[in-house]
């Protein structure tokens, strides 16, 4: 166990926390590039995109959104537990966060499989698929003329977010087995929990924005 870490001069935070905030600042720009591209593609497109809920399964994604919000609460409870020096609660809340995070990714994989089976691909609606038939019957509702743009934007944005969630789950699982279970965190030093928590909350925050602009608008 390392001794309590001294705060650096200037910002008065320890290096890893400062590093995470700088990293998150770069992540804001990364997701801004994706969201900005989405806005330009959508509002500059020659036709209307598919109506909300026409292609995507909103109820399943709403449940997934709720799960991610729950995981943010369990993460912050893990942080509060170790700040109070309670190892047992830290194990419980962090374990729960990992479980919910893995569930989120699993539901997203299920969603992708289901969409591909229906015929929704990054390139648009697969010829001969159920969705392609629906798009022919009602081209406005299903945004038939811009299905390729819709598909590529949807899979790129949700895919990159899903990758971030996966990285978060792996990071938390790593900490769980190498630091939390052996009891290496204490009331005096719980930097890893705080830093991975910041990342996890950021991933939740990004999803809140993505859910609205990709699924609801």
């Amino acid at each position, binding site marked *: 166990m390392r001794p*309590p*870490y001294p705060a650096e001069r*200037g*910002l*008065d*935070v320890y290096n890893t926390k*400062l590093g995470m*905030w*700088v990293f*998150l*600042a*770069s992540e*804001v*720009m990364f997701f*801004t*590039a994706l*969201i*900005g*591209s989405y*806005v*330009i593609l959508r*509002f*500059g497109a020659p036709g209307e995109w598919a109506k*909300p*809920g026409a292609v995507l399964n*909103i109820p399943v994604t*709403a449940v997934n*959104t*709720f799960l991610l*919000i*729950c995981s*943010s*609460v369990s*993460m*912050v*409870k893990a942080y*509060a537990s170790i*700040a109070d020096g309670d190892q047992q609660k830290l194990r419980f809340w962090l374990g729960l966060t990992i479980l919910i995070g893995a569930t989120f990714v699993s539901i997203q994989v299920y969603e992708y499989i289901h969409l591909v089976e229906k015929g929704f691909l990054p390139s648009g609606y697969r010829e001969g698929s159920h969705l392609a038939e629906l798009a022919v019957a009602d081209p406005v509702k299903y945004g038939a003329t811009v299905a390729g743009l819709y598909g590529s934007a949807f899979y790129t944005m949700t895919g990159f977010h899903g990758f971030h969630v996966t990285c978060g789950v792996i990071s938390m699982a790593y900490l769980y087995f190498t630091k939390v279970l052996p009891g290496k965190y204490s*009331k*005096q*030093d*719980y*930097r890893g929990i705080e830093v991975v*928590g*910041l990342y996890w*909350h*950021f991933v*939740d*925050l990004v999803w*809140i*924005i993505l*859910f*609205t*602009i990709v699924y*609801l*608008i």
Partner: protein
Amino acid sequence: METAHKRPNYILIWAYLAVLTAAELALAFELPISRNLKLILLLFLAVWKAALVGMFFMHLKFERWNLRILAIIPLPLAAIFVLAAMSEHVW
């Protein structure tokens, strides 16, 4: 390594987020209002939820001012980036 600030009620924040998510869904699919108004309200709710996560779960509300500035700096840059790209249509 002590948390110097008083902790917020995390469960209350969670309840706020859950209610706001339900409000978003109701707004998107149930309320018969104009598309533009719906767009503005949905974005407002999303930003509200994101702010709750940032302020209370990431503890920005309780951090020192200089760390808060570090966290906030990318947001106007992001807005400038998107607006500049959108103005392409004007040019």
